[in-house]
């Protein structure tokens, strides 16, 4: 029983930052822009969020500041990939190095800080439920928001006019234009939103999960989040599954070792990535991929360059 509670709590803790990054990038990818710079956005959000938490102790300011920090990286990504038509992946990698440098520089004074406050909020009655109570309803504010976030994004994407416009920007920008909206602005908004969400996810990690700022503390979670969007087949409700699958894998990585399950630690250490890879391989074979049309163009160029070259040669003839 106790084991189950611990595993579940650790799954939630490790998976929650991923919910933010997956949901954010999902909206961005829906408009046709992949933000691999989520890693950098999360890092900036974690650093700025932790700083604001230490000096103001205000949750609202933490959320706003970390969102702004994440969106700052998002803004550069948007400018480069939308206006300058730079390669999305290449520019994102450079942005991540920029974020690593910036946060290492500005985060120096935060390395020794001790965080006060920001405790868990127990939901009355619900937190008394055995096993689930402690892991699900005895959490911090940003985790509760993460529980609601995918539903919120689902509702916006599928039930509102704004959602339809966002989706159209990724499926066929001509239609967006015909409806009187500027796809460029929609994309900018979506990429900024992606960055902001990643920033908040980073803050969740530094302020609530580890309660510490450390250089490069995101350690690839932004990249994984970005790739998990495909695992969700671009559907927000599936981000619960993807994020907490990663969380569970990290949790089990530790659990198996504590219980001395005879599996090599080299294998358990691969768990989070192995599971992501296997899940990606399975879902990408699915017959009903939800990939936005404009992303397909990018994706096909990357995955099937020879076909593309042949097509071009045919066209030239």
């Amino acid at each position, binding site marked *: 029983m106790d084991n189950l509670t*611990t595993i579940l709590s650790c799954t939630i803790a490790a998976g929650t930052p991923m919910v933010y990054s997956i949901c954010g990038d999902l909206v961005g990818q829906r408009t046709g822009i992949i933000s691999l710079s989520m890693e950098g956005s999360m890092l900036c959000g974690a650093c700025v969020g932790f700083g604001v938490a230490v000096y103001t102790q205000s949750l609202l300011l933490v959320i706003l500041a970390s969102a702004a920090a994440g969106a700052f990286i998002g803004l550069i990504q948007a400018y480069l990939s939308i206006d300058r038509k730079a390669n999305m992946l290449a520019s994102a990698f450079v942005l991540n190095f920029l974020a690593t440098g910036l946060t290492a520089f500005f985060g120096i004074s935060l*390395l020794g800080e001790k965080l006060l406050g920001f405790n868990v909020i127990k939901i009355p009655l619900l937190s008394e439920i055995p096993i689930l109570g402690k892991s699900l309803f005895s959490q911090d504010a940003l985790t509760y928001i993460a529980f609601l976030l995918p539903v919120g994004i689902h509702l916006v994407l599928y039930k509102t006019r704004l959602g339809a416009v966002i989706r159209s920007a990724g499926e066929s920008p001509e239609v967006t234009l015909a409806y009187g909206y500027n796809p460029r602005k929609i994309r900018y908004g979506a990429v900024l939103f992606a960055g902001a969400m990643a920033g908040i996810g980073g803050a969740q990690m530094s302020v609530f999960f580890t309660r510490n700022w450390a*250089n490069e503390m995101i350690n690839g*979670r932004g990249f994984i989040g970005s790739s998990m969007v495909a695992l969700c087949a671009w559907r927000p409700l599936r981000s619960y599954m993807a994020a907490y699958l990663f969380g569970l894998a990290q949790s089990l990585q530790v659990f198996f*070792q*504590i219980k001395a399950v005879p599996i*090599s630690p080299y294998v358990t250490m691969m768990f989070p990535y192995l599971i992501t890879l296997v899940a990606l391989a399975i879902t990408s074979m699915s017959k009903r991929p939800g990939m936005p049309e404009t992303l397909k163009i990018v994706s096909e160029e990357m995955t099937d360059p020879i076909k593309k070259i042949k097509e071009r040669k045919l066209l030239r003839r």
Partner: protein
Amino acid sequence: MKTRRLIALVLMSTLLAVLLLAGCGQAPAASTAPDSEKGTAQSTPVSTEASTGSAAKPGAGATKAAVLLGGTREDYGFNYACANFGKQLQETLGIEVIIKENVSDTSDAEGVIEELITQGCGIVVATQFGFLDATINVAGRHPDVAFYYMGNTDKNHDNFSVINGQQWDPWYLCGVLGGFVSEGGNIGFVASMPVPDVMIAINSFQLGAQSINPDAETHVVFTGAWDDAGLATTAANQLIGSGCDTIAQFQDTPKPIIDLCEREGISVFGCNSDVMELAPDVWISSMVCDWDGYMQPIKEAIDGNYECVFLQGSFSENLAKIARTGTRVTEEMNEHIGAIIEQMRADAFHVFEGPVYNQRGEVMFEEGYQPSSAEINTIDWFVKGVIGNVN
């Protein structure tokens, strides 16, 4: 079409070259001296500044030393301790010390070391294991500079010396303290990677713990990363959840786990640095390097008597020691480890002296057998009482 692209390419590369040249031109101008002088100084480094004292001995008369760190000095772990080493070097030997943080352990390190030598550093201290190749390569090009390497290797030659504090003695003492303070005898160990240094730490820790409490167990979790605050937190949380009342760790940044244990009221060990002030109420101790032993060879090099050294050891050589002990450690416990330290200094106590059993209870070192350093460094199994897998 093709020619137009070619022209564009040529134009772009010219632009790039011009920009690069402009960048190079500005950098020295901003630092010191007229440009022309700087140019010549760069081509013949150190020889002018560092070896003014005696003829050809490496590091002779050096006025500047460089300490290369693999991370930030504020990590409350190894780099923090190494930054203190830099300070001590400056205070005891009266030379200027440049502490270079966040040096990548790729071939980039070569460029960084070259740059430091250009700035006049006659002594270079490489603290991370990953700097090995880069340091050896640069050492070959600069016979007048003395290089000191802190990693565990026997590749010392000419102007490349190795000073390596051996960790098993202090880790054993940490284990002794762990055996004292852990009431349930369940100690969690958040390890990073299954490499020799970490294996030695875990094994010596368990040997120390079971010398006090024969039933003590060390539960090991490898995070697979030197520095992942999230995974370290998950590991420590689960270890505490599974009943461990004391946590030891081998992490580059020990602070997240120390903070966590402070909130939970769990006894905690640091790693590689004395940071008791972070949480004096739950802090037990930590293994740390003793920088005193590093000073003498470097002093001799500056005095013009450089010798290529290969120094290894702990208490007897003043190369490793144990950090301050926290409020949970009683006077008796301190006396107990004090007595062991005396024996270690007198070379009368050996951590891995047989009988040592592995996890399955098989004898690995026979009664009375003293394994050599090389044997200890290649241990790839856990001693009895360690719970966890390594292969």
